[in-house]
């Protein structure tokens, strides 16, 4: 353990001798700071002060700094101060780590209310800029997609298959599971509520319409936004951080063609397929619960379902899927490209990618609901 840094005061006439002792190292940081303040207090008012280092054990830059700081402050207060009996190594250290005046940190600017207004203004401008940028990006990627379709031999099939597997195939179990569970829950609540009216069998209509029109595609999109949208942002973002995107550009390859189009296309293909599976799993969940809670046999359930829904009910859900995929993919890629140099910024963009994607998925779903209502489909 280091010896405690301290000092003894010795007064001779109007000269104060401060005999320092102990180890003046950062390990005993707090005590050292107190002792240094003590030095100033002890010698204040004297004509001259001598800081004697003869009995100091070890000393590091922290100690040197504090000792020299005390000496400077005494000087400024009109006490002639000097340091004595420093060993050569200590002198070097005192010289290297001697007191210098660092500017005080900049004072905080402005009024809090003004700051808040500025922030609000900045977010509005940013939201608008995001929207404009998003539309621009959408146009750019549609052009790139069309270009890829026009020149299929240049298309990156391997990349497409790879992403189809990771976005599509590997999401199947979790998509099936959550949709099955939600189908069960919807069926159970429907049966309980409709039982009051003796209309339990109408729960089948509700399950069919709710799952096929809304829940299947919505749950799948939200899951994919969390699972694959974040992956797209993280992948593209870390490539951006390590200048891999720049490397692609200087090779004459467009990151849009190489990275973004295959991912977008994979999502656009995978999401309808997943939605179909999600629909089936949801209906199956409803079927199981209806059998258990309402005693409706699978045959009766399916008969009922056939009369309750039409092909259009099924299509409404499915039509929405590729648009959801486009929204998720575009937001993921845009946020990925917005990553700056730091790990923190990567985290921020991934979060914002998932939040924005889920938000936009729900907005798009609402727009579709209005659209289908007005065309009475």
């Amino acid at each position, binding site marked *: 353990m280091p010896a405690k840094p301290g000092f003894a005061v010795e007064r001779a006439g109007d000269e104060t001798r401060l005999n320092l002792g102990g180890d003046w*190292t*950062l390990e005993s940081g707090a005590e050292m*700071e107190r002792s240094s303040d003590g030095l100033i207090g002890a010698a204040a008012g004297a004509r001259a002060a001598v800081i004697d280092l003869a009995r*100091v054990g*070890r000393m590091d830059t922290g100690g040197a700094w504090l000792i020299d700081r005390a000496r400077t402050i005494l000087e400024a207060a009109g006490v002639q101060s000097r340091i004595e009996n420093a060993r050569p190594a200590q002198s070097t250290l005192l010289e290297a780590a001697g007191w*210098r005046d660092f500017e005080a940190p900049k004072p905080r600017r402005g009024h809090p209310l003004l700051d808040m207004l500025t922030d609000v203004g900045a977010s509005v401008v940013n939201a608008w800029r995001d929207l404009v940028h998003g539309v621009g990006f959408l146009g750019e990627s549609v052009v790139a997609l069309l270009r890829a379709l026009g020149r299929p031999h240049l298309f990156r099939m391997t990349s497409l298959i790879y992403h189809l597997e990771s976005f599509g195939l590997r999401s199947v179990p979790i998509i099936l599971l959550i949709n099955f569970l939600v189908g069960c829950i919807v069926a159970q609540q429907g049966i309980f509520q409709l039982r009051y009216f003796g209309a339990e069998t109408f729960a089948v209509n509700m399950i069919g319409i709710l799952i096929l029109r809304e829940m299947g595609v919505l749950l799948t999109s939200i899951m994919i936004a969390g699972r694959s949208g974040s992956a797209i942002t993280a992948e593209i973002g870390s490539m951006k951080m390590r200048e891999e995107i720049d490397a692609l550009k200087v090779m004459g390859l467009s990151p849009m063609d190489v990275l973004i189009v295959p991912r977008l296309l994979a999502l656009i293909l995978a999401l309808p397929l997943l939605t179909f599976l999600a629909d089936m799993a949801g209906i199956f969940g409803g079927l199981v619960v209806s059998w258990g809670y309402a005693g409706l046999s699978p045959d009766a359930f399916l008969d009922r379902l056939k009369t309750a829904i039409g092909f259009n009910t099924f299509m409404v859900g499915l039509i929405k899927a590729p648009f959801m995929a486009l929204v998720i993919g575009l937001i993921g890629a845009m946020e990925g490209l917005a990553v*700056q*140099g*730091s790990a923190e910024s990567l985290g921020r963009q991934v979060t914002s990618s998932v939040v924005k994607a889920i938000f936009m998925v729900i907005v798009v779903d609402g727009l579709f609901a209005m659209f289908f209502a007005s065309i009475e489909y």
Partner: protein
Amino acid sequence: MVVEAANGTGQADVIIRVRDLVVGFGPKIIMRGLDLDVRRGEVLGFVGGSGQGKSVLTRTILGLVPKRSGKIEVFGQDLDRVDADDRRRLERRYGVMFQQGALFSGLTVKQNVQAPMREHLKLSQRLMDELALLKIELVGLPRDAADKFPSELSGGMIKRAALARALALDPELVFLDEPTSGLDPIGAAEFDDLIQTLQRTLGLTVFMVTHDLDSIYAICDRIAALAEGKVIAEGTIQTMLSSQHPWVKAYFRGKRGRVLALTRDDRHAPAGGL
């Protein structure tokens, strides 16, 4: 970085002692019974071909890579025998500068330098600010660099900032992993000078992994060469030049080495004579 009270022991004391070290990954053995001593107050240059395990050795000493067998003593303490508290206390006595800097990208340079202080020491914010700025100035960074983020710095500045962070706790021992790689010759020479100045003023022991022959000639007191999982040659530059090992011969007496060997007497103080 600590000025000792009268050091009457006289003999050069050994700060890192590695004995019979074996390190491997899976079936691949990288260190086959390696021995190495680092003495207090010296600058040890550690050279070796790419992929020979220079960084692995550094990381093993730092405890980032597990060893198969052998003994590592740092500051006289066997790393296998110290408990977690002692290990923490030990880690406070050395600073590490990673090859890519490994600065925390979410913190400014000043906060990076303060990070170890904040964790290990009880200091007032004012003193921490002052000491961080002092360290930043000691490594030759401009003062406005203190409030910049690592992504806003050039390669050379990142190296300096990483060195400032390595020096934050006033360590006695500093590990430098290829400190001059990626710097232009002028920047590299300045960095060499900086390391030497700091080493002298602060009384550091420096363990430096390097490829840079200029650094070796300019600032290393002793050199250890690694090949085939062992230290095949150890000593001053003269020892290296007279070694008969083919790799050492190729390294120090190859085309690049010869020019330096011819000119070194005019340019640098003799190695080992600190």
